[in-house]
């Protein structure tokens, strides 16, 4: 059903009320926001989704798409030039280390995807249960958790990730998993807060109270009723956090923390190397990895915000056309001139 409706007053033919169809498929559930949105909103949502899918595609098939591997510095035994201008062999030029910029940018999508998926999964796995428990159990457990999470939340998130990455790299190892854990530290408090808040409000909802009155155990209530309800707000945050996580990953890479250059191609690291190039007027080493970040983050943000606009009914603004009133089609006007007839 489209939101824009033109109305012509024909009272004789009431609109045929379709019984609500019960659609169980997950596909149609995913498609729902796209159907409900409209206009500019829909355009932004669809564009965001398409670009995100493109990046995911690029990440998965990086070895097939990229001309070389991210750490290739030669082809057929011939070394690439360092800081070489875009050419037939290296369409986006080469870096100061003589790597192919195009290949590194494409492989960067793969690194980003890996880290972001891990980080979001970790944060969900920790933040959602903690939020549910805190919100449902309440009491001192809740108070302590809130205090810790608020403290973490107030902390500049990049600094938090920096410290986490610094400590983890020093004590454990570097690499994709460790970087993902460092980013997780940043997002756990966010999931915790959102889930706890919606748990608190859902807890007081009548259906939960009814379940409790019927003697359902707390475990059942949390697992069956609260979880299902609270989880609805997660896709939006997860998408927005994924966007944010790409930025944090790039920030860490730019500062030389997290993933080491020989482990994977990382956009932030490449940009760090490009600083000195900028002084020499070399633009290609900065532009392409940078565009990778901007496009990926923008696309995910568009999806997240679009979903939010559609799924969150309080923000939803209906755009409906003014109805056209055709007087003749409606019943008679009610009686005028009451007073004048009195006399």
């Amino acid at each position, binding site marked *: 059903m489209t939101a824009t409706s033109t109305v012509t*007053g024909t009272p004789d033919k009431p609109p045929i009320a379709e019984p609500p169809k019960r659609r169980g498929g997950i596909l149609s559930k995913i498609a729902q926001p796209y159907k409900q949105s409209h206009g500019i909103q829909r355009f932004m949502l669809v564009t965001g989704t398409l670009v995100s899918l493109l990046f995911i595609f690029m990440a998965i098939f990086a070895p097939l798409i990229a001309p070389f591997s991210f750490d290739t510095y030669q082809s057929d035994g011939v070394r690439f030039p360092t800081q070489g201008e875009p050419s037939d062999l290296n369409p986006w030029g080469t870096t100061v280390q003589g790597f192919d910029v195009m290949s590194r940018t494409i492989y960067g999508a793969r690194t980003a995807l890996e880290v972001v998926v891990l980080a979001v999964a970790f944060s969900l796995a920790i933040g959602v249960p903690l939020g549910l428990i805190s919100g449902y159990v309440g009491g001192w457990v809740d108070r302590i958790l809130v205090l810790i999470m608020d403290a973490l939340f107030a902390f500049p998130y990049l600094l938090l990730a920096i410290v986490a990455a610094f400590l983890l790299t020093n004590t454990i190892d570097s690499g994709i998993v460790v970087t993902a854990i460092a980013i997780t530290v940043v997002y756990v408090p966010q999931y915790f807060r959102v889930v706890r808040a919606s748990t608190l409000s859902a807890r007081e909802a009548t259906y939960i109270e009814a379940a409790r009155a019927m003697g359902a155990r707390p475990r059942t209530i949390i697992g069956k009723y609260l979880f299902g309800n609270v989880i609805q707000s997660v896709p939006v945050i997860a998408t927005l956090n994924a966007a944010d996580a790409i930025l944090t990953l790039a920030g860490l890479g730019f500062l030389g923390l997290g993933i080491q250059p020989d482990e994977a191609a990382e956009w932030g690291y490449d940009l760090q190397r490009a600083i000195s190039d900028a002084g020499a007027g070399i633009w290609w080493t900065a532009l392409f990895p940078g565009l990778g970040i901007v496009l990926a983050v923008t696309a995910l943000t568009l999806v997240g915000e679009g979903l939010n606009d559609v799924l969150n009914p309080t923000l939803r603004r209906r755009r*409906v056309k003014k109805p056209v*009133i055709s007087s003749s089609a409606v019943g*008679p006007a*009610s*009686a005028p*001139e*009451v007073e004048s007839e009195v006399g």
Partner: protein
Amino acid sequence: MADPVLSLRDLRIWYGAERGAVRAVDGVSLDLLPGETVGLVGESGCGKSTLGRGVIGLLPAGAGHAGEVNYKGQNILELKPKRLRAMRGPELGMIFQEPMTRLNPLMKISDHFEEVLKIHEPKLSRKEARNRAMEALRGMGIPPTRYKQYPHEFSGGMRQRIMIALALVLRPAVVVADEPTTALDVLVEAQIIRILADLRRNFDTALLLITHNLGIVAEACDRVAVMYAGRVVEQGPAYDITTKPSHPYSRELLRSTISLSTTELHSIPGAPPDLVSPPPACRFHPRCPDAMQICAQQWPTTVATSPGRRSECWLHSKDQIPKGLDAPLEREALAAAEEA
């Protein structure tokens, strides 16, 4: 007989919605004489508030309208937005339902008054404006010492009195009060109603008092219009209607009113109809205890049942009902119509 200060002619206000047009107001004609208080009663969702906003031209985007709202010889719905805006306040005022949220929380009471006075009476000096505002507040029993305070420092009843003072400070000819006491407790309600009832004595202000409380109508109104599903089904002098209603809906509504003499609760079965696809013909027929077969087929004519009274019901023009259609509407049909 004085000319009406405001007269609605076949006013229709429909909202665009995803399912189709919501016919919130659908063919209403009503007059308001100078200094007169007219009560507009009906259940929630019958279009009362929409009508009230339509009267001062305060319709949301996405609302279509037809018909006329005549004020001083011009249809205000046809006016340019700027002209209409200049009339809102000094000519047409409005008092809203929930006083708690109607004042800007960041502006002092004084700022609210000075803002409207500056807009509509720019020649007034600051001091004169202040005096006018103080006078209006004093009239509502708000001490002048509280002039410089913020809205949140007042109780609900006081805020509603401030809202009234804010509407009256410009001395409008017509004031629409949209359920001004619904959000307030009973004692405050009585106070506000007394203030509104005093209006017609002290000013020449015509008041359209929207309410679902028939007690208020009996107490404060000269005339009443009973609204059902976007239509005024009965109108007439307040005393007559609250004692001898002639439309079945008014009668049922009156019976549902709880008073001290109430011994058992009465309610009208069914719910107000869906305004996107209202019942054909008389809109009340699915719920009407007196419904006849004709009621589901033809619009009832409007009949003057007594001087100054009008009722839109077939009961009053039984002689015009074609043979056979005056049989009571059958129960199955009633139930089916209700479900529709």
